[in-house]
């Protein structure tokens, strides 16, 4: 009753304007399908793909990207695919020119292994912490940073170094991306995300590092349903949210590395 009385005090003209404003300017990052979410990814794009092995790998978005047909891609991921699904399927479709990762070689990475030995894919190998920090730096607007990891090794050859307080460091640059494909557990229409267990891995930092972040979520929830104290990725870092079913599958025991 109280609400009715309050609404009656708003002049009709203003009420109409408010309604119109709400409908037109409402932020809604929910996209109906994976296909629609990845439709405009261009040839030659740099695409970050979340996940550590299969945990957190956005397989539905990857499948949509394969179907969409963009080629000459640069992929950023920790690994280089397992067996023949997800990232491995993308590699197998020969759409990937270069991969930036820390741990390509696994016992079930045969798709990547064959492409690598045939000289059909370029590999930039980055120590895992430097990979994470280069992604984080991109999202945080850092121009470059000095890291002790890799100093003096093959992976720092030709890179600028500096001695700071008696310790040697290597200069590393951020990795920016055109698109990030990530997987979260729940999200809302503003793009706020929470993750599930160790499937979080690269999601939050990749979300910030890409111009367009597309999140595959298990469940879309109403605004306010996600506890603001536990939102891991605030919506400002996310441009599109797609609800997709599909849990990760475990890497076969003998295949882990």
């Amino acid at each position, binding site marked *: 009753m109280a609400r009715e009385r309050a609404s009656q005090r708003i002049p009709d003209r203003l009420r109409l304007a408010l309604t119109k404003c709400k409908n037109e300017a409402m932020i809604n990052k929910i996209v109906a399908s994976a296909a629609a979410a990845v439709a405009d990814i261009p040839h030659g794009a740099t695409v970050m793909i979340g996940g550590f092995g299969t*945990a957190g790998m956005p397989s539905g978005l990857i499948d949509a990207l394969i179907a969409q047909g963009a080629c000459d891609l640069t992929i950023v991921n920790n690994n280089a695919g397992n067996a023949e699904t997800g990232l491995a399927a993308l590699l197998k479709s020969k759409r990937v020119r270069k991969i930036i990762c820390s741990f*390509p070689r696994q016992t079930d990475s045969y798709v990547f292994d064959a492409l690598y030995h045939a000289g059909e894919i370029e590999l930039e190998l980055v*120590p895992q912490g430097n990979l*994470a*920090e280069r992604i984080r730096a991109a999202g945080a607007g850092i121009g470059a940073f000095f890291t002790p*990891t890799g100093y003096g*090794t093959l992976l720092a050859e030709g890179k600028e170094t500096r001695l700071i307080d008696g310790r040697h460091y290597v200069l590393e640059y951020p990795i920016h991306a055109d698109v990030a494909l990530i997987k979260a557990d729940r999200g809302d229409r503003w793009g706020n995300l929470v993750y599930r267990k160790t499937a979080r891995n690269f999601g939050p930092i990749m979300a910030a590092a890409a111009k367009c972040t597309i999140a595959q979520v298990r469940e879309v929830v109403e605004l306010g349903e996600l506890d603001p104290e536990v939102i891991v990725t605030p919506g400002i870092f996310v441009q599109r949210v797609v609800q997709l079913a599909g849990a*990760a599958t475990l890497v076969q025991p003998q295949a882990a*590395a």
Partner: protein
Amino acid sequence: MAARVARDIPEGAYVNLGIGLPTLVANHLPRDREILLHSENGLLGMGPAPDLGAQDPDLINAGKQPVTLLPGGAYFHHADSFAMMRGGHLDFCVLGAFQVSLRGDLANWHTGAAGAIPAVGGAMDLAIGAKNVYVMMEHQTKSGQSKITERCTYPVTAFQCVSRIYTDLAVIDVTAHGLVVLAIVDGLAFDELQRLTGVPLTNAAAGVAA
């Protein structure tokens, strides 16, 4: 080897166990000691493997094996996880190795063989980051060469980072004064260990310090 490493890890330690041999250490950690295991993919307070049927594909360790989380454990993203390593917050890491040099250089990421696909993962971050870097490895290669060497002939992971070496024959500290043998397997004499190792060792038990 794993049991001996486990015995040397104190109450309250934050520990990362590398893939391979070091993973076995977890099975020997005393149950009455609170030790927090870190897994680089993003968890702290890692528990034992789950029962069959209770595996969760979203809850795995760095080796991509299903694990559990202890009460009080936490999940975090990769940049935080590696800040724990690189930032010097981990007390111990235990790593496998191809070679360790006299001065503690570590080679454990790449054989350098022609055609081998290099993969580094978090090895370099762990080696430079943890307060104590323990290595677990066989003392000799299959062809009988010492894996403790004057200098690493394999590509190096990090320089002067190893603090202690556990092998099937001995426990050896890497110090500013060289390699100090803390323990030898039963039935092996120090002189024989010295002969098999090929680089100068000091016997701590004999109280001889260089």
